């Protein structure tokens, strides 16, 4: 029996690839190889933009990721939260957190916040969590002109009128940095924020799945999207930039090895297919 026939008949391809996949991931995670990690230009640009937020500036963090995408967007989200709250501590900036796509975003936003040490920061003066505001694109449009009308209360029920920090924060004129973390298409954020933010020179940074990065390129080239984080690769890079390696860095080696297997398999399968075509059999 030819080797090729034996492979296709006796070996259940799924299980074999799955086993190799498990081994390839397990090894680097237990004993990190420390492969070099390229930091992309947009990641560096996102870091500098957040670093350049002026004293007392307002940072808006919208967390709209879902449970399945936490593995990809989590590292970047945690790194940006740590950097934002370091700005709060050093430059007295203000942070506004909100969610508008689905409830899971609020829960994962809280999970990212749990990685940040908040000692010495006072809720209501340094940062505010507006919680889940239903309405998706309507909320993104309303926060540009009248934040207090679309978010009458914060997550804990205190009216936004009475929160000291939000006294003179209500529209795009008061924001200095717009960040969104999304696992669906990012054009909704650019559609609603793009025009006004570009006019005011407020940067827009979006942490998105690497699958949606090609969709964002037209906006990145047109200038409406100022910088973006390309999921876990950029998350690990951002962690290195703020000097606190964490979840992302640990994943990088496993990413690489699992990736090599993917590339090797695609060449093997496509090679077989093209050879078969050359041989004239479809």
């Amino acid at each position, binding site marked *: 029996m030819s080797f090729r026939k034996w492979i296709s*008949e*006796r*070996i*259940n391809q799924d*299980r*074999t690839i*799955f*086993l190799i996949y*498990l*081994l390839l*991931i*397990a090894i680097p*995670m*237990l004993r990190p190889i420390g492969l070099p990690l390229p930091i992309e230009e947009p990641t560096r640009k996102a870091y500098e933009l957040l670093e350049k937020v002026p004293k007392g500036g307002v940072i808006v963090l919208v967390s709209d990721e879902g449970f*399945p*995408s*936490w*593995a*990809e967007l*989590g590292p970047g989200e945690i790194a940006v939260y740590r950097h934002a709250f370091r700005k709060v501590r050093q430059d007295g900036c203000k942070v506004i957190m909100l969610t508008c796509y689905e*409830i899971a975003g609020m829960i994962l936003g809280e999970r990212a916040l749990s990685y940040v040490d908040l000692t010495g920061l006072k809720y209501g003066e340094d940062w505010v969590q507006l919680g*889940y505001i*239903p309405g998706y*694109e*309507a909320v993104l*449009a309303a926060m540009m002109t009248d934040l207090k009308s679309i978010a*009458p*209360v914060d997550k804990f*029920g205190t009216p936004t009128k009475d929160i000291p920090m939000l006294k003179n924060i209500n529209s795009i004129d008061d924001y200095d940095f717009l960040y969104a973390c999304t696992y669906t298409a990012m*054009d*909704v954020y*650019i*559609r*609603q924020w*793009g*025009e006004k933010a570009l006019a005011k020179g407020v940067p827009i940074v979006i942490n998105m*799945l*690497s*699958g*949606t*990065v*090609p*969709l964002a390129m*037209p*906006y990145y*080239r*047109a*200038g*409406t999207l100022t910088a973006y984080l390309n*999921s*876990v*690769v950029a998350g690990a890079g951002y962690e290195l930039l703020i000097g606190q390696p964490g*979840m992302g860095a*640990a*994943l990088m080696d*496993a*990413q690489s090895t*699992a*990736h090599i297997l*993917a590339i090797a398999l695609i060449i093997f399968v496509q090679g077989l297919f093209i050879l078969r075509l050359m041989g004239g059999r479809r």
Partner: protein
Amino acid sequence: MSFDWGTAAEMALVLMAWSLLYRDNVFYRVAENLTIGWFMAMSLVIGLDLLRTRVYNPLFIEGRWLSPLIIVTILGLFYLLRLYRETRWLARWPISLMAGVASAVAVKGVIYAQIIRLVTMKSWAVGGLETINNIIIAVFTFTGLCYFIFTKEHRGVLGYLAGFGRYALMICFGWTAGTYLMSLISMSVGHMQTLMQVPGIYVSAVAMIILIIGIIYDIKVKPKI
């Protein structure tokens, strides 16, 4: 290693969810129904909380009865009437209002961000690689758009342009598919991270052993899959 019940419960659920990789079984179905039930509970808790702060408090505590809020509340209750066949048509009013707001908000964003900014091309006389890039982008955008002309047969000049546009879109889609696969890989690798820490390592070890047995079983015993 402190054995806390939380991590043990989490690991048990993850194992139940991944048992589907072996084959569809009772544990997987239980895990799936548990997650739907919890999701429903979470949605109801947060839905009621929102209702309290947005409708109940202003109406009953602050007594703003004459404000437009009363109209929204009635429309909202109409929305809930979709459950019953006779009053289903009443729910079309709130749906139309929400659809009106959603489309208007989308359209007002589309004109600037998706049409004007993307139609703005850059100069072809900048010199060096930049010029070539600008030329390629302008040509790819132009021909790609020609491909999306439907009411005229793709013959003659339009046929040539649309044909080239199809190649441009093909490169773009190939690139998107490649990065989409990377997204799938990092999604599954990321979940592996929880299973490679201390409590989860046992689950992975068990999974690997089952797989190895499965493969050996395929080779030795079962002749044909």
